[in-house]
């Protein structure tokens, strides 16, 4: 167990405690006198319009889904970035640096191919009109 994480744990504990304490205390202290007005959701003083559990447009989900798919692809860039130095060198690194004249564009090329595939997907989505709101 790494000792360095203990402060984080403390912070977590304090945060949870505070939240529970505030809500719990107010419940203990308050007197419950419900009126219709009071039971309305609070919308910055404005009278609420319609149901709070409003249905979102299907378009919202579609765009969200597309976002997720493209977003998650970036996760592949992290290992790529971490390893970029090695990927850009035709021979093993010497002391963290690439020997002169051994620079390779393999790493860059790989990522370009990856991006091209993503781009193809993006173009497809665009062309299909999935990004148009109406």
């Amino acid at each position, binding site marked *: *167990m790494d000792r360095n994480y203990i402060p984080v744990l403390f912070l977590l504990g304090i945060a949870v405690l505070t939240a529970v304490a505030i809500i719990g205390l107010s419940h203990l202290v308050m007197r419950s006198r419900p009126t219709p007005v009071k039971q309305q959701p609070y919308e910055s003083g404005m009278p609420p319009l319609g149901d709070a559990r409003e249905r979102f447009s299907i378009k919202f989900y579609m765009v969200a*889904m597309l976002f*997720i798919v493209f977003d998650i692809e970036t*996760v*592949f860039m992290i290992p790529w970035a971490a390893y970029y130095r090695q990927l850009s060198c035709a021979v093993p690194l010497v002391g963290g640096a690439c020997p002169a004249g051994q620079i390779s564009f393999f790493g860059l090329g790989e990522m370009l191919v990856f991006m091209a595939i993503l781009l193809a997907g993006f173009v497809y989505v665009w062309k299909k009109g999935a990004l148009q709101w109406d």
Partner: protein
Amino acid sequence: MLVEALALSALLFTIGVVGVLTRRNAIIIFMCVELMLNAVNLSFVALSKLYGAAGQVFVVFTMAVAAAEAAVGLAIIIAIFRHQRTVNLQNINLLKG
């Protein structure tokens, strides 16, 4: 620590399984499946501490695949909703026998 992580992973996986078996809403069932996948991811991460990066690479792949699956899955659920006006699986049984 490894054992605890694997135990937690198994626990989460089981919760996912129970969710799939007991819930009736297609979306919730799918969320439970996602929970199962992520439980496995936890195993992979924990194991990669023992065996090196392969486990972590696997996690990345799993996440990407799960996202693609989520996109397709939600599209399918929307399609079924258009036909049946419900995503409650108990009402979806045209095909049987």
